[in-house]
């Protein structure tokens, strides 16, 4: 998350609201380690990366929903036999993300 500080500071100075998504856990072959983070401003501007590309779009959609609801949430992306997850990771792993408003 620390690499996001310059963008977060710029957005805060502009009075924009921010949601931060952090990788908290991975199973199997995850592209980014726990701690990898992405921030999404309320106008949809994005900083950082959580997956090397595969699920970034879906994370931004989730982040915009967190902007609307104000509620932190845990989301999971990955491959599974029962197709329980909406978006797949081409590398075959499962990634757990925590999304929350940066209001602390």
């Amino acid at each position, binding site marked *: *998350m*620390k690499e996001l*500080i310059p963008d977060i*500071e710029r957005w805060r100075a502009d009075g924009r609201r921010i949601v931060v998504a*952090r990788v*908290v*856990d991975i199973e*199997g*072959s995850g592209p980014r*380690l*726990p*701690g990898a983070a992405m921030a999404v401003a309320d106008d949809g501007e994005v900083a950082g990366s959580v997956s090397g590309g595969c699920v970034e779009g879906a994370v931004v959609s989730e982040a915009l929903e967190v902007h609307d609801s104000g509620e*932190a949430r*845990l989301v999971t992306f990955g491959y599974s036999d029962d197709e329980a997850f909406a978006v797949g990771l081409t590398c075959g792993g499962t990634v*757990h993300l*925590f999304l*929350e408003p*940066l209001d*602390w």
Partner: protein
Amino acid sequence: MASLYDTWRDAVADQRPVVLATVIEGPGTGAKILVGEGVEAMGTLGDPDLDRVVVRDALGELESGRTSVRHYGPHGEAREQAVAVFVESFAPPPQMLVFGAVDFTGALVKVAKVLGYRVTVCDAREVFATERRFPDADEVVVDWPHRLLDRVGERLGPRDAVCVLTHDHKFDVPAILAALTTDVGYLGAMGSRRTCAERLDRLEAEGADMAAVDARLHAPIGLDLGARTPEETAVAIVAEIIATRTGRPSSSLRTTTGPIH
């Protein structure tokens, strides 16, 4: 009063080690505690007993630079699952000390910066050890390598690296002897097979613990990639540092099976 975010940001910007614990599942999702070495805990997860246990565990994780999810009961009970806490360590960058202000040094400094090291170049010869020659280094020190190690060696740990590139026994041997007294995770020294063999004889003559030399000294430095130029050699050196940390045999991915990372 500074918010938790402001305190976290200032600590990270100043490279002070801190750890941020966030409830990601269970009562109080989103609640946080920030704590660091010599920094009083700030925030609460909503229960004083849970706070106490998480602060203790988080400081332990910070010490080894780990980031992970831990589970607790509502009051911090072990072996319960009611609360999931994401514990994220923000440790200062690892250190690399490069001894010898030679051709290979500039390339190694550049590659080490890509990997996030704080890099110090040290050479006793002041005409070579200049900031002008190594603009990417965080610090250029004119001194004997072993004397620098006497000053900073105590701070070196498993994440750090010492690369001895002087290939001059006069500087190398005392530098390696001093590096062996530290907990540095990677110690490598440059030189031909013959130079490396002679260096071992000199280390033995100086009373080095040869079992420790055998276990810890990577010489000739770097992986066998067929590297020739300074830039290729720098990649071979940092590749060996990564392989040493992960304990992998560093074969080509095409000849191995199993997870790729």
